[in-house]
Protein backbone atom coordinates (compact mmCIF):
# COMPACT_ATOMS: atom_id res chain seq x y z
CA UNK A 1 0.00 0.00 0.00
CA UNK A 2 1.16 3.48 -0.76
CA UNK A 3 1.05 5.34 2.50
CA UNK A 4 2.32 8.82 2.00
CA UNK A 5 -0.09 11.59 2.78
CA UNK A 6 -0.38 14.77 0.84
CA UNK A 7 -0.76 17.82 2.98
CA UNK A 8 -3.84 19.68 1.72
CA UNK A 9 -2.93 23.13 0.48
CA UNK A 10 -5.17 25.13 2.75
CA UNK A 11 -5.22 28.85 3.23
CA UNK A 12 -3.77 28.32 6.68
CA UNK A 13 -0.49 26.64 5.70
CA UNK A 14 0.15 28.86 2.67
CA UNK A 15 -0.46 32.07 4.55
CA UNK A 16 1.79 30.74 7.29
CA UNK A 17 4.97 30.54 5.27
CA UNK A 18 5.78 34.24 4.90
CA UNK A 19 4.57 35.07 8.39
CA UNK A 20 7.18 32.75 9.92
CA UNK A 21 9.97 34.84 8.47
CA UNK A 22 8.42 38.20 9.06
CA UNK A 23 9.78 41.57 8.01
CA UNK A 24 13.54 42.13 8.24
CA UNK A 25 13.29 44.42 11.26
CA UNK A 26 11.36 41.83 13.20
CA UNK A 27 13.82 39.10 12.25
CA UNK A 28 16.74 41.22 13.40
CA UNK A 29 15.07 41.74 16.76
CA UNK A 30 14.41 38.02 17.04
CA UNK A 31 18.09 37.35 16.46
CA UNK A 32 19.19 39.81 19.12
CA UNK A 33 16.77 38.23 21.55
CA UNK A 34 18.06 34.74 20.72
CA UNK A 35 21.62 35.92 21.31
CA UNK A 36 20.70 37.11 24.79
CA UNK A 37 18.75 33.98 25.68
CA UNK A 38 21.88 31.86 26.07
CA UNK A 39 23.43 34.35 28.46
CA UNK A 40 20.17 34.74 30.34
CA UNK A 41 19.95 30.97 30.83
CA UNK A 42 23.41 30.95 32.42
CA UNK A 43 22.45 33.73 34.82
CA UNK A 44 19.15 32.05 35.75
CA UNK A 45 20.78 28.66 36.34
CA UNK A 46 23.49 30.33 38.41
CA UNK A 47 20.84 32.16 40.44
CA UNK A 48 18.87 28.98 41.11
CA UNK A 49 21.85 26.83 42.02
CA UNK A 50 23.50 29.49 44.18
CA UNK A 51 20.28 30.25 46.03
CA UNK A 52 19.77 26.55 46.84
CA UNK A 53 23.37 26.24 47.99
CA UNK A 54 24.23 23.68 45.32
CA UNK A 55 27.42 25.58 44.46
CA UNK A 56 28.66 25.53 48.06
CA UNK A 57 27.50 27.98 50.67
CA UNK A 58 30.18 30.48 49.64
CA UNK A 59 28.96 31.17 46.13
CA UNK A 60 27.13 34.46 45.75
CA UNK A 61 24.01 34.79 43.63
CA UNK A 62 24.01 37.08 40.58
CA UNK A 63 22.06 39.57 42.66
CA UNK A 64 24.73 39.64 45.36
CA UNK A 65 27.41 40.03 42.70
CA UNK A 66 25.51 42.95 41.28
CA UNK A 67 25.41 44.61 44.67
CA UNK A 68 29.14 44.05 45.11
CA UNK A 69 29.74 45.48 41.65
CA UNK A 70 27.69 48.54 42.53
CA UNK A 71 29.83 49.16 45.61
CA UNK A 72 33.04 48.66 43.64
CA UNK A 73 31.92 51.08 40.98
CA UNK A 74 30.85 53.70 43.50
CA UNK A 75 34.16 53.61 45.30
CA UNK A 76 35.93 53.92 41.94
CA UNK A 77 37.96 50.79 42.54
CA UNK A 78 36.49 48.82 39.67
CA UNK A 79 36.68 51.44 36.95
CA UNK A 80 40.16 52.67 37.89
CA UNK A 81 41.63 49.21 37.83
CA UNK A 82 39.63 48.24 34.76
CA UNK A 83 41.11 51.22 32.94
CA UNK A 84 44.62 50.13 33.92
CA UNK A 85 44.00 46.62 32.63
CA UNK A 86 42.39 47.77 29.41
CA UNK A 87 45.33 50.06 28.69
CA UNK A 88 47.73 47.17 29.33
CA UNK A 89 45.84 44.95 26.95
CA UNK A 90 45.64 47.71 24.34
CA UNK A 91 49.39 48.31 24.51
CA UNK A 92 50.16 44.61 24.44
CA UNK A 93 47.83 44.00 21.53
CA UNK A 94 49.19 46.95 19.59
CA UNK A 95 52.62 45.38 19.76
CA UNK A 96 51.62 41.74 19.49
CA UNK A 97 49.16 42.14 16.66
CA UNK A 98 51.55 44.33 14.65
CA UNK A 99 54.31 41.78 15.11
CA UNK A 100 52.04 38.85 14.26
CA UNK A 101 50.74 40.60 11.16
CA UNK A 102 54.20 41.69 10.04
CA UNK A 103 55.75 38.25 10.53
CA UNK A 104 52.79 36.58 8.85
CA UNK A 105 53.10 38.89 5.85
CA UNK A 106 56.85 38.34 5.57
CA UNK A 107 56.44 34.57 5.74
CA UNK A 108 53.43 34.66 3.45
CA UNK A 109 54.89 36.75 0.69
CA UNK A 110 58.29 35.13 0.31
CA UNK A 111 59.53 31.60 0.64
CA UNK A 112 62.82 32.88 2.05
CA UNK A 113 60.82 34.87 4.61
CA UNK A 114 58.91 31.77 5.62
CA UNK A 115 62.14 29.79 5.99
CA UNK A 116 63.62 32.42 8.30
CA UNK A 117 60.53 33.28 10.30
CA UNK A 118 58.48 30.13 10.63
CA UNK A 119 60.78 27.85 12.63
CA UNK A 120 61.54 30.32 15.43
CA UNK A 121 57.91 31.40 15.63
CA UNK A 122 56.75 27.80 15.87
CA UNK A 123 59.28 27.14 18.62
CA UNK A 124 58.25 30.21 20.64
CA UNK A 125 54.60 29.41 20.12
CA UNK A 126 54.88 26.36 22.34
CA UNK A 127 55.99 28.36 25.39
CA UNK A 128 53.07 28.75 27.80
CA UNK A 129 52.43 32.23 29.15
CA UNK A 130 52.25 30.86 32.70
CA UNK A 131 55.82 29.64 32.47
CA UNK A 132 57.02 32.85 30.89
CA UNK A 133 55.45 35.21 33.46
CA UNK A 134 58.25 34.90 36.06
CA UNK A 135 60.92 35.10 33.36
CA UNK A 136 59.40 38.29 31.97
CA UNK A 137 59.39 39.71 35.51
CA UNK A 138 63.13 39.15 35.66
CA UNK A 139 63.74 40.57 32.22
CA UNK A 140 61.37 43.50 32.19
CA UNK A 141 61.10 44.36 35.89
CA UNK A 142 58.16 44.49 38.25
CA UNK A 143 56.48 47.40 36.49
CA UNK A 144 54.00 47.58 33.68
CA UNK A 145 56.49 46.58 31.02
CA UNK A 146 56.65 42.92 31.98
CA UNK A 147 52.86 42.67 31.87
CA UNK A 148 52.55 44.44 28.56
CA UNK A 149 55.31 42.25 27.14
CA UNK A 150 53.50 39.10 28.21
CA UNK A 151 50.22 40.34 26.71
CA UNK A 152 52.07 41.26 23.51
CA UNK A 153 53.71 37.87 23.29
CA UNK A 154 50.80 35.47 23.38
CA UNK A 155 48.37 36.97 20.80
CA UNK A 156 51.16 37.18 18.24
CA UNK A 157 50.88 33.52 17.35
CA UNK A 158 47.23 33.02 16.47
CA UNK A 159 47.40 36.07 14.22
CA UNK A 160 50.66 34.96 12.63
CA UNK A 161 49.33 31.49 11.85
CA UNK A 162 46.12 32.79 10.34
CA UNK A 163 47.78 35.51 8.27
CA UNK A 164 50.18 32.95 6.83
CA UNK A 165 47.44 30.38 6.30
CA UNK A 166 45.16 32.99 4.78
CA UNK A 167 47.78 34.07 2.28
CA UNK A 168 48.60 30.47 1.36
CA UNK A 169 44.91 29.91 0.75
CA UNK A 170 44.51 32.67 -1.85
CA UNK A 171 43.58 31.14 -5.20
CA UNK A 172 46.65 31.06 -7.42
CA UNK A 173 44.47 31.53 -10.50
CA UNK A 174 43.25 34.89 -9.23
CA UNK A 175 46.85 35.99 -8.84
CA UNK A 176 47.64 34.84 -12.35
CA UNK A 177 44.68 36.67 -13.85
CA UNK A 178 45.52 39.85 -11.91
CA UNK A 179 49.07 39.59 -13.25
CA UNK A 180 47.70 39.25 -16.76
CA UNK A 181 45.85 42.51 -16.13
CA UNK A 182 49.16 44.20 -15.50
CA UNK A 183 48.92 44.39 -11.72
CA UNK A 184 52.31 44.92 -10.08
CA UNK A 185 53.63 43.41 -6.87
CA UNK A 186 52.23 46.09 -4.60
CA UNK A 187 48.87 46.03 -6.36
CA UNK A 188 48.85 42.25 -6.07
CA UNK A 189 49.31 42.50 -2.32
CA UNK A 190 46.71 45.22 -1.91
CA UNK A 191 44.05 44.10 -4.37
CA UNK A 192 44.36 40.32 -4.32
CA UNK A 193 46.40 38.75 -1.54
CA UNK A 194 45.32 40.81 1.47
CA UNK A 195 41.59 40.82 0.67
CA UNK A 196 41.80 37.12 -0.15
CA UNK A 197 43.45 36.36 3.17
CA UNK A 198 41.22 38.71 5.15
CA UNK A 199 38.53 36.24 6.28
CA UNK A 200 41.22 34.03 7.79
CA UNK A 201 43.06 37.03 9.23
CA UNK A 202 39.91 38.08 11.06
CA UNK A 203 39.56 34.61 12.53
CA UNK A 204 43.11 35.02 13.81
CA UNK A 205 42.27 38.44 15.21
CA UNK A 206 39.40 36.96 17.14
CA UNK A 207 41.59 34.25 18.64
CA UNK A 208 44.31 36.76 19.46
CA UNK A 209 41.94 39.05 21.32
CA UNK A 210 40.65 36.13 23.38
CA UNK A 211 44.18 35.05 24.21
CA UNK A 212 45.07 38.61 25.25
CA UNK A 213 42.41 38.67 27.98
CA UNK A 214 43.46 35.27 29.28
CA UNK A 215 47.09 36.33 29.46
CA UNK A 216 46.04 39.52 31.24
CA UNK A 217 44.80 37.38 34.11
CA UNK A 218 48.11 35.52 34.26
CA UNK A 219 50.13 38.72 34.00
CA UNK A 220 48.29 40.44 36.83
CA UNK A 221 48.55 37.58 39.28
CA UNK A 222 51.94 38.56 40.69
CA UNK A 223 53.77 41.77 41.46
CA UNK A 224 50.85 44.04 40.67
CA UNK A 225 49.57 47.11 42.41
CA UNK A 226 46.86 48.02 39.95
CA UNK A 227 44.56 46.30 37.47
CA UNK A 228 41.71 43.83 37.64
CA UNK A 229 44.07 41.17 38.95
CA UNK A 230 44.69 43.27 42.07
CA UNK A 231 41.01 43.32 42.91
CA UNK A 232 40.95 39.53 42.70
CA UNK A 233 44.12 39.14 44.76
CA UNK A 234 42.85 41.46 47.48
CA UNK A 235 39.46 39.79 47.50
CA UNK A 236 41.14 36.41 47.85
CA UNK A 237 43.01 37.66 50.89
CA UNK A 238 39.87 38.97 52.58
CA UNK A 239 37.67 36.13 51.35
CA UNK A 240 35.32 38.51 49.53
CA UNK A 241 34.00 35.92 47.17
CA UNK A 242 31.35 38.20 45.72
CA UNK A 243 34.07 40.65 44.67
CA UNK A 244 36.03 37.85 43.01
CA UNK A 245 32.91 36.99 41.06
CA UNK A 246 32.50 40.60 40.00
CA UNK A 247 35.91 40.50 38.35
CA UNK A 248 35.21 37.15 36.71
CA UNK A 249 32.03 38.58 35.23
CA UNK A 250 33.94 41.65 34.04
CA UNK A 251 36.44 39.38 32.28
CA UNK A 252 33.57 37.63 30.55
CA UNK A 253 32.00 40.93 29.48
CA UNK A 254 35.32 42.20 28.13
CA UNK A 255 35.65 39.03 26.08
CA UNK A 256 32.15 39.47 24.70
CA UNK A 257 32.77 43.11 23.86
CA UNK A 258 35.97 42.51 21.90
CA UNK A 259 34.36 39.62 20.07
CA UNK A 260 31.45 41.84 19.09
CA UNK A 261 33.97 44.34 17.78
CA UNK A 262 35.53 41.79 15.45
CA UNK A 263 32.09 40.65 14.30
CA UNK A 264 31.30 44.22 13.38
CA UNK A 265 34.57 44.39 11.49
CA UNK A 266 33.71 41.15 9.69
CA UNK A 267 30.32 42.46 8.64
CA UNK A 268 31.90 45.61 7.29
CA UNK A 269 34.87 44.09 5.52
CA UNK A 270 33.40 40.82 4.31
CA UNK A 271 30.11 42.06 2.94
CA UNK A 272 31.09 40.64 -0.46
CA UNK A 273 31.18 37.12 0.88
CA UNK A 274 28.66 34.54 -0.14
CA UNK A 275 29.59 31.92 2.41
CA UNK A 276 27.08 29.71 4.15
CA UNK A 277 25.60 31.76 6.95
CA UNK A 278 23.53 29.01 8.51
CA UNK A 279 19.76 28.77 8.46
Amino acid sequence: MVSHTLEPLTAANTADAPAVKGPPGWRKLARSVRKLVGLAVIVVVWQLLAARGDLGNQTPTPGQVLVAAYDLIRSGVLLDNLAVSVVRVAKGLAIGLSAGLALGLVAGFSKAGEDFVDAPVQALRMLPAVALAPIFLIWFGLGDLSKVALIAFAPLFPLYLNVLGGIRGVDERLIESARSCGVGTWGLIRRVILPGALPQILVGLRQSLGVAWIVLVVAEQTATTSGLGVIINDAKEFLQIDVMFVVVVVYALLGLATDALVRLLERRLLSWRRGYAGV
Partner: protein
Amino acid sequence: MTTGVKVRQAGRRFGSRTVLRDVDLDIAPGEFVALIGQSGSGKSTLLRAIAGLDPDATGAYEVPDRHAVVFQEHRLLPWSRVWRNVTLGLNETNLRERARRALDEVGLAARANAYPGTLSGGESQRVALARALVRTPGLLLLDEPFGALDALTRLKAQALVARLWTEHRPAVLLVTHDVEEALLLADRVLLLDGGRIAETFDVDLPRPRSIGHPRFVALRRQLLAGLGVADAEEKL
Protein backbone atom coordinates in the same frame (compact mmCIF):
# COMPACT_ATOMS: atom_id res chain seq x y z
CA MET B 1 50.86 48.68 -31.92
CA THR B 2 49.54 46.33 -34.59
CA THR B 3 52.35 43.83 -34.72
CA GLY B 4 50.49 40.57 -34.52
CA VAL B 5 51.86 37.43 -32.94
CA LYS B 6 54.93 35.43 -33.85
CA VAL B 7 55.80 32.33 -31.86
CA ARG B 8 58.78 30.15 -32.69
CA GLN B 9 59.69 26.77 -31.20
CA ALA B 10 57.50 27.14 -28.17
CA GLY B 11 58.19 24.33 -25.74
CA ARG B 12 57.11 23.29 -22.28
CA ARG B 13 57.85 20.25 -20.15
CA PHE B 14 56.37 19.23 -16.86
CA GLY B 15 58.99 17.01 -15.29
CA SER B 16 59.72 14.33 -17.87
CA ARG B 17 56.49 15.00 -19.82
CA THR B 18 56.83 17.21 -22.84
CA VAL B 19 53.53 18.96 -23.44
CA LEU B 20 54.65 21.47 -26.06
CA ARG B 21 57.44 20.29 -28.31
CA ASP B 22 57.96 22.72 -31.13
CA VAL B 23 55.10 25.07 -31.76
CA ASP B 24 55.33 27.72 -34.49
CA LEU B 25 52.40 30.08 -34.71
CA ASP B 26 51.64 33.38 -36.41
CA ILE B 27 48.62 35.60 -36.03
CA ALA B 28 48.28 38.64 -38.25
CA PRO B 29 46.98 41.90 -36.74
CA GLY B 30 43.22 41.70 -36.55
CA GLU B 31 43.14 38.01 -37.43
CA PHE B 32 40.88 35.59 -35.57
CA VAL B 33 42.54 32.24 -34.96
CA ALA B 34 41.02 29.30 -33.16
CA LEU B 35 43.12 26.64 -31.44
CA ILE B 36 41.55 23.22 -31.04
CA GLY B 37 42.92 19.99 -29.69
CA GLN B 38 42.04 17.15 -27.41
CA SER B 39 41.78 17.65 -23.71
CA GLY B 40 45.27 17.71 -22.24
CA SER B 41 46.90 18.45 -25.59
CA GLY B 42 48.46 21.64 -24.17
CA LYS B 43 46.13 24.38 -25.44
CA SER B 44 45.97 26.25 -22.13
CA THR B 45 49.68 25.73 -21.64
CA LEU B 46 50.39 27.35 -25.01
CA LEU B 47 48.02 30.22 -24.28
CA ARG B 48 49.66 30.89 -20.91
CA ALA B 49 53.07 30.89 -22.56
CA ILE B 50 51.93 33.39 -25.19
CA ALA B 51 50.37 35.57 -22.47
CA GLY B 52 53.74 35.63 -20.72
CA LEU B 53 52.31 33.92 -17.64
CA ASP B 54 54.58 30.90 -17.74
CA PRO B 55 58.22 31.69 -16.92
CA ASP B 56 59.25 28.08 -17.58
CA ALA B 57 58.10 27.99 -21.21
CA THR B 58 60.86 27.96 -23.82
CA GLY B 59 60.91 29.50 -27.28
CA ALA B 60 60.65 32.93 -28.86
CA TYR B 61 57.50 34.98 -28.44
CA GLU B 62 56.61 38.19 -30.20
CA VAL B 63 53.36 39.45 -28.74
CA PRO B 64 51.69 42.89 -28.76
CA ASP B 65 52.38 44.76 -25.54
CA ARG B 66 48.70 45.24 -25.07
CA HIS B 67 47.22 41.80 -24.69
CA ALA B 68 44.45 40.53 -22.47
CA VAL B 69 43.29 37.09 -21.33
CA VAL B 70 39.86 35.67 -20.61
CA PHE B 71 40.11 32.36 -18.82
CA GLN B 72 37.75 29.43 -18.75
CA GLU B 73 36.60 30.44 -15.27
CA HIS B 74 35.88 34.15 -15.01
CA ARG B 75 38.52 34.72 -12.30
CA LEU B 76 36.95 37.93 -11.05
CA LEU B 77 38.00 39.12 -7.61
CA PRO B 78 35.00 38.32 -5.40
CA TRP B 79 35.82 41.15 -2.98
CA SER B 80 35.90 43.87 -5.64
CA ARG B 81 32.85 45.36 -7.26
CA VAL B 82 32.31 44.63 -10.93
CA TRP B 83 33.61 47.98 -12.16
CA ARG B 84 36.72 47.68 -10.00
CA ASN B 85 37.33 44.25 -11.50
CA VAL B 86 37.01 45.64 -15.00
CA THR B 87 39.60 48.35 -14.37
CA LEU B 88 41.96 46.13 -12.37
CA GLY B 89 45.55 47.04 -13.11
CA LEU B 90 44.76 50.27 -14.95
CA ASN B 91 46.06 53.44 -13.40
CA GLU B 92 44.61 56.48 -15.01
CA THR B 93 41.89 58.89 -14.10
CA ASN B 94 38.21 58.38 -14.70
CA LEU B 95 38.34 54.61 -14.31
CA ARG B 96 34.66 54.47 -13.46
CA GLU B 97 33.67 55.99 -16.76
CA ARG B 98 35.94 53.65 -18.70
CA ALA B 99 34.50 50.68 -16.84
CA ARG B 100 30.98 51.88 -17.56
CA ARG B 101 31.66 52.09 -21.28
CA ALA B 102 33.24 48.64 -21.41
CA LEU B 103 30.39 47.17 -19.40
CA ASP B 104 27.95 48.89 -21.68
CA GLU B 105 29.46 47.01 -24.61
CA VAL B 106 28.71 43.68 -22.97
CA GLY B 107 25.31 44.87 -21.79
CA LEU B 108 26.10 44.96 -18.08
CA ALA B 109 26.43 48.65 -17.24
CA ALA B 110 23.63 48.26 -14.72
CA ARG B 111 25.65 45.78 -12.67
CA ALA B 112 28.73 47.96 -12.29
CA ASN B 113 28.34 48.15 -8.53
CA ALA B 114 27.46 44.51 -7.90
CA TYR B 115 29.83 41.98 -6.38
CA PRO B 116 30.82 39.13 -8.73
CA GLY B 117 29.23 36.63 -6.37
CA THR B 118 25.81 37.94 -7.33
CA LEU B 119 26.31 37.44 -11.09
CA SER B 120 25.27 34.45 -13.17
CA GLY B 121 27.91 32.41 -14.98
CA GLY B 122 27.23 34.09 -18.31
CA GLU B 123 27.26 37.55 -16.76
CA SER B 124 30.56 36.83 -15.04
CA GLN B 125 32.13 35.78 -18.34
CA ARG B 126 30.86 38.97 -19.97
CA VAL B 127 32.44 41.01 -17.18
CA ALA B 128 35.68 39.14 -17.80
CA LEU B 129 35.31 40.05 -21.47
CA ALA B 130 34.75 43.70 -20.56
CA ARG B 131 37.85 43.56 -18.37
CA ALA B 132 39.83 42.40 -21.40
CA LEU B 133 38.26 44.94 -23.79
CA VAL B 134 38.83 47.94 -21.56
CA ARG B 135 42.55 47.50 -22.21
CA THR B 136 42.01 47.96 -25.99
CA PRO B 137 44.22 44.92 -26.58
CA GLY B 138 46.11 44.27 -29.78
CA LEU B 139 45.80 40.60 -28.91
CA LEU B 140 42.90 38.94 -27.15
CA LEU B 141 43.59 35.50 -25.68
CA LEU B 142 40.46 33.49 -24.93
CA ASP B 143 40.82 30.15 -23.13
CA GLU B 144 37.53 28.32 -23.59
CA PRO B 145 35.66 31.34 -22.28
CA PHE B 146 32.26 29.82 -22.97
CA GLY B 147 33.02 26.26 -21.94
CA ALA B 148 30.98 26.42 -18.77
CA LEU B 149 27.94 28.13 -20.27
CA ASP B 150 24.69 26.51 -21.36
CA ALA B 151 24.01 26.21 -25.09
CA LEU B 152 21.80 29.27 -25.43
CA THR B 153 24.02 31.57 -23.37
CA ARG B 154 26.98 30.26 -25.29
CA LEU B 155 25.43 31.22 -28.63
CA LYS B 156 24.79 34.73 -27.33
CA ALA B 157 28.32 35.02 -26.00
CA GLN B 158 29.75 33.86 -29.33
CA ALA B 159 27.70 36.48 -31.15
CA LEU B 160 28.94 39.08 -28.67
CA VAL B 161 32.56 38.12 -29.30
CA ALA B 162 32.00 38.23 -33.05
CA ARG B 163 30.51 41.72 -32.79
CA LEU B 164 33.22 43.05 -30.48
CA TRP B 165 35.92 41.62 -32.73
CA THR B 166 34.36 43.29 -35.76
CA GLU B 167 34.22 46.61 -33.95
CA HIS B 168 37.65 46.61 -32.30
CA ARG B 169 39.64 44.28 -34.55
CA PRO B 170 42.17 42.84 -32.12
CA ALA B 171 44.07 39.73 -33.12
CA VAL B 172 42.33 36.86 -31.33
CA LEU B 173 43.51 33.44 -30.23
CA LEU B 174 40.50 31.42 -29.14
CA VAL B 175 41.13 28.11 -27.41
CA THR B 176 38.15 25.83 -27.72
CA HIS B 177 37.20 22.21 -28.03
CA ASP B 178 33.96 23.16 -29.76
CA VAL B 179 34.50 22.65 -33.48
CA GLU B 180 31.41 24.64 -34.46
CA GLU B 181 32.45 27.55 -32.30
CA ALA B 182 35.82 27.59 -34.04
CA LEU B 183 34.21 27.53 -37.48
CA LEU B 184 31.66 30.21 -36.63
CA LEU B 185 34.24 32.68 -35.38
CA ALA B 186 37.71 32.06 -36.77
CA ASP B 187 39.56 32.95 -39.97
CA ARG B 188 41.88 30.04 -39.34
CA VAL B 189 41.71 26.95 -37.15
CA LEU B 190 44.85 25.34 -35.76
CA LEU B 191 44.90 21.79 -34.50
CA LEU B 192 47.31 21.15 -31.62
CA ASP B 193 48.42 17.54 -31.40
CA GLY B 194 51.53 15.81 -30.16
CA GLY B 195 52.99 19.04 -28.85
CA ARG B 196 52.95 20.85 -32.20
CA ILE B 197 50.54 22.47 -34.62
CA ALA B 198 49.52 19.35 -36.52
CA GLU B 199 47.15 20.92 -39.02
CA THR B 200 45.90 24.30 -40.19
CA PHE B 201 42.46 24.88 -41.69
CA ASP B 202 41.58 28.09 -43.52
CA VAL B 203 37.95 28.89 -42.92
CA ASP B 204 36.98 30.35 -46.27
CA LEU B 205 33.38 31.02 -45.35
CA PRO B 206 31.52 34.30 -45.76
CA ARG B 207 30.43 36.08 -42.57
CA PRO B 208 28.01 35.99 -40.89
CA ARG B 209 28.31 32.24 -40.96
CA SER B 210 25.66 29.61 -40.83
CA ILE B 211 26.01 26.07 -39.59
CA GLY B 212 23.99 24.78 -42.54
CA HIS B 213 26.42 26.01 -45.24
CA PRO B 214 27.74 22.97 -47.17
CA ARG B 215 31.33 24.20 -46.87
CA PHE B 216 30.80 24.55 -43.12
CA VAL B 217 29.66 20.94 -42.94
CA ALA B 218 32.65 19.79 -44.92
CA LEU B 219 35.09 21.74 -42.75
CA ARG B 220 33.50 20.40 -39.61
CA ARG B 221 34.02 16.87 -40.83
CA GLN B 222 37.69 17.64 -41.51
CA LEU B 223 38.20 19.16 -38.07
CA LEU B 224 36.49 16.29 -36.32
CA ALA B 225 38.66 13.87 -38.27
CA GLY B 226 41.68 15.83 -37.10
CA LEU B 227 40.48 15.41 -33.53
CA GLY B 228 40.02 11.71 -34.13
CA VAL B 229 36.23 11.66 -33.89
CA ALA B 230 35.42 11.24 -37.56
CA ASP B 231 32.40 9.05 -36.93
CA ALA B 232 30.71 11.38 -34.52
CA GLU B 233 28.14 12.72 -36.89
CA GLU B 234 27.28 9.46 -38.55
CA LYS B 235 26.33 8.23 -35.09
CA LEU B 236 24.09 11.21 -34.42
